């Protein structure tokens, strides 16, 4: 699972390609030292980095790449209700015993690529790759997850909503490794993931949403909604969440159908038109929150 791809590796003379360097540190301090000195590309499961290489080699040789293979760093493993390590795969997340608010994340984990990708690709890598269609982002926005970034200079935590800056751009600096996600305590409510694509398996989302609703009798007492692939960065819809408070099921459906959603700026691409995305967004949100 690649983190974003470095620009500093692209300068090459036409006839002399530099060699790749490949580092495989066995401890985090060693890794952070290498990051500070060489700014290599962090590598976990490889499920974004290798496809990127294939794309980069279509018209000629790719730029040289320095790799930092994180797979030997035991401290980056592990999945719990409060922490997801950088090496945690989709399969590990899907199979872990996690509270009901994680259900959307676990449902997304079984819809990212095929089982081959789920067995190798990591949740953190999905965030660092920062595709607008990254299936992991809405479920984690729902959980108010924080990304822990480490460098030789120290450690910082940043909210996921602040971490992904734009299409394929994150707040990670070239010296930093995203080492873990931290998740605060969650309401004891089951979340749900809704993915919209043009085929059943192995499909990049046209739009997807994660939602949860806690009901007090017939009225919504708490709602969380996040949506992806309808803006350069997946978004929590805080305005909608507030508007849903106190709504009955029918009222909620009406609110989701009509409330202005300024957070969204869907684009047209090969998977769908902008107008379609704008309309479909409301529908996947309704299914995620109200199903």
């Amino acid at each position, binding site marked *: 699972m690649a983190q974003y791809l470095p620009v500093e590796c692209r300068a090459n003379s036409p006839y002399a390609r530099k060699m790749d360097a490949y580092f495989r540190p066995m401890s985090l301090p060693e890794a952070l030292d290498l990051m500070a000195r060489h700014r290599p590309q962090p590598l976990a499961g490889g499920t974004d980095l*290798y496809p990127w290489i294939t794309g980069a080699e279509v018209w000629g040789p790719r730029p040289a790449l320095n790799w930092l293979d994180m797979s030997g760093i035991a401290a980056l493993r592990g999945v719990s209700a409060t922490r997801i390590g950088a090496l945690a795969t989709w399969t590990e997340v899907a199979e872990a015993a996690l509270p009901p608010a994680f259900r959307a994340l676990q449902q997304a984990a079984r819809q990212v690529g095929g089982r081959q990708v789920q067995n190798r690709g990591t949740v953190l890598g999905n965030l660092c790759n920062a595709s607008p269609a990254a299936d992991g982002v809405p479920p984690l926005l729902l959980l108010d997850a924080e990304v822990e970034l480490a460098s030789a200079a120290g450690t910082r935590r940043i909210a996921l909503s602040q971490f992904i800056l734009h299409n394929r751009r994150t707040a990670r600096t070239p010296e930093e490794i995203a080492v873990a996600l931290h998740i605060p305590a969650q309401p004891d409510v089951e979340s749900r993931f809704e993915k919209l694509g*043009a085929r059943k398996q192995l499909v990049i989302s046209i739009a997807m949403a994660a939602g949860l609703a806690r009901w007090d009798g017939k009225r919504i007492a708490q709602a969380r909604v996040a949506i992806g692939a309808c803006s350069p960065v997946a978004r929590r819809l805080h305005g909608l969440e507030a508007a849903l408070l106190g709504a009955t099921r029918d009222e909620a459906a009406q609110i989701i159908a009509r409330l202005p959603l300024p957070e969204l700026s869907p684009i047209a691409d090969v998977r769908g038109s902008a107008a379609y995305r704008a309309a479909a967004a409301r529908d996947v949100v309704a299914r995620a929150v109200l199903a």
Partner: protein
Amino acid sequence: MNAMPPPPIALTVNGQTHALPLPPATRLSAALRDTLGLTGTKIGCDAGDCGACTVLLDGAQVCACMVPVAQAAGAQVTTVEGLAGTRWGQALAASFLHHGAAQCGICTPGMVMAAAELLARDATPDEAAVEAALGGVLCRCTGYRKITDAVLDAHRFLDTPPAPESGAVGARIPRLDGPAKLDGSERYGADAAPADALWLRPIRSPHAHARFTLPDIPQFLAANPGVEAVLTARDVPGRNGFGIYPHIKDQPVFAEHTVLYRGDCVAALVGTRDAVLRAEFPVAWVPLPALDVTAARADGAPLLHAHLPGNILTTGRVVSGTAAPAAHTARIAVQTSFVEHAYIEPEAGYAQRIGDVVEVFASTQAPYMDREEVAGVLGIPEDRVRIIPSACGGGFGGKLDVAVQPMLAVAAWLLNKPVRTIYARPESMLSSTKRHPASITAEAGCDAQGRLTHIHFDGDYDTGAYASWGPTVAGRVPVHASGPYRVPQVAAVARAVHTHNPPSGAFRGFGVPQAAIAQEALWDQLADAAGLDRLEFRVLNALRAGDTTATGQRVEHSVGLLACLEALRPHWQALRARAAAENARGGALRHGVGVACMWYGIGNTGMSNPSTMRLELTPDGALTFFNGAVDIGQGSTTVLHQIAAEALGLPVVVFAHVNGDTFLTPDAGKTSASRQTFVSGRAAFEAGRALRADILRRANAGDDAALSLEAGVLRVNGASLHLHETLRAEGRFDPPTVPLDENGQGIPYATYGFAAQIAALAVDTRLGTIKLYRIVAAHDVGRAINPTLLEGQIHGGIAQGIGLALMEEYIPGRTENLHDYLIPSMGDVPPIDTILIEDPEPLGPCGAKGVGEPALVATAPAIYSAIRDATGAVITRVPALPHRVLEALRRG
């Protein structure tokens, strides 16, 4: 960077540990194939999109193309070669063969590895578990249903060796070339080459239309040690052009000065693999305006090929009859998209020069046409070109054109060294031919009782930059524009129009699937207008034996459409009732059922297309079938053996087989136009009969004598017959046709395949998504030589029809990979009921005719018929992606 040279990596594969001196980021797939020679692991995309390279890493399935070999160190890697020796490996192999779950076989190693992961934890999984476990592997041939069945059933084959089979015509024998597809030993284009082969890298245009200047080549070579040669147009020793038609060799091996599509080839680097892949070859491009169909047809448009006014390559026409008055009329305008063949095996092969002969080993559907092209570009006689087809990892029409063959041959010829190449997935997609996008307008009418009066059809087919099979498409479409119906007046025109798009060529159906979308939609409108059930409307108008078609051909035999529709009728009624019950509940899901028919002329259109098959029986009892028909997964090797065996009167197990080597086998034409069972099958039948007659004459035995061949002893009615010489028998068949005149009158085909299909589905009216519930397919195949293989063809055709209908849209520069370009995945193909109708064709072997293309044609129209039934939405923009379905819904 001052990194130390990496230590050797200890890789344990199938229980054996190897120390590999490889860069640590090397893909595990490359380590397995290139370093360890374990070529059973296939490369389809190098991007995790297709799953062909699936192996087990400590028991978990992974794409070997995305695993750095450094991360596999210390783990247990299991490949298909290792699995083949295990209990589950053997059970899976037996079950796959029994169910016909492997066709071309290129996805098969990935499928069985994914299945092995599942079965190790759950020996008797359910269908959902199979889909979850195998859904990461794409298959383009089978339609997945038989793969699912094979995995569900694998436990029954544990410790149960398969029983031998006689292989009589009509028997469901496992494919004869199957075992090698299951154990990884089959050799595809990328799986074999001389050890000292150089590597060839084509240099292609990233622009749809551009002038270009190549860099200074001596200077480039001096700066790039390891690159031995740069080949350009001036290096082609013969004609720098190839193409399907003898008089249209318009596609250059290497373009000169100007490129006409994104992917056009301008040069090739030849040298060590590392050197050619690392070299920067700076071509100076001057982009020029690129024409689409509308621009290409505009008055005064620049011409792609100076001798073709209006950029029109070919116009096909069928005009006949006079219209009766119509009580109801309907019209439609349909726009379809480029469709990519997406065979999971990218183009690959090698060439070598042996004296004054050049040998080309490559993945192909047409070895004899490849021979002609290679001889042409080298300027040597055809008998000095030897084409050795590799196993073909899917074709569907896309490997009827040469790809790697001419440039490999030129390189091997000039350098006198073996040269190989393997296209990466993006290169395969952007350089290869496509299904023609069609802009169709059509209008039709019926009388008050619903009897068709006329159809007028006009189609512009975007044939791209070079001719390829464009003339074939423009010729075939008007013949089929009426569909398999009695239509008193037909006026049909199809044009192949040159543009700066990828060459459109042959793709399962040669333009007919696009035409059927328009024509079947008109029938639905007319049926409604006349107040008739849509299926009964088709029954009323169906072509019957003794009718005359729009080309003036009287079809006397094997017109089984009515039987197909009648077989569908109970399914139609049951599915309609179910949809009505579902719809009565209300909600955003609307259920619908659709029906469509098709016909398809078998073989070339009004043109000779003979096949010759040969059998040899030596005095020591070796019986060999010399079969030049390339089995691209559809099963011709098995079917032709069954036919030859039936005609000869011996079981298939006694035959040895030589396949498709132009130095050894007689010309069986190309594997296209659904012709191998019908044309080569008849030739195989004739060869079998001729050898039998020779044997019976020598034994002085009657026609009904029983033959046997065991332990090298030939017996006739139990008495051994010693041969003093090798017996050779050839059979030849060329289907009788009459070329079409300027109004499309003639006998374009000797026989036709017929089918009718039903699609049952639900439309999510809020999201525009389609959920298919069932396909029921009734096909008149003349005679079912091998029902299992026939069902496999029908399933696979339906899957491609689903792709055409719902998701496949190739956009140059945008969808040149298998994650932006979508083909159906395992969960997209619903249960399929296959009904085989046998209305025998007297010209065919044992009554058989073809099914390869008929399988696909009716599916997309049936799906659109069902969408309209469910919602009223008429799909006119293909594919019906969710946003287009919603747009059509809003139009009403």
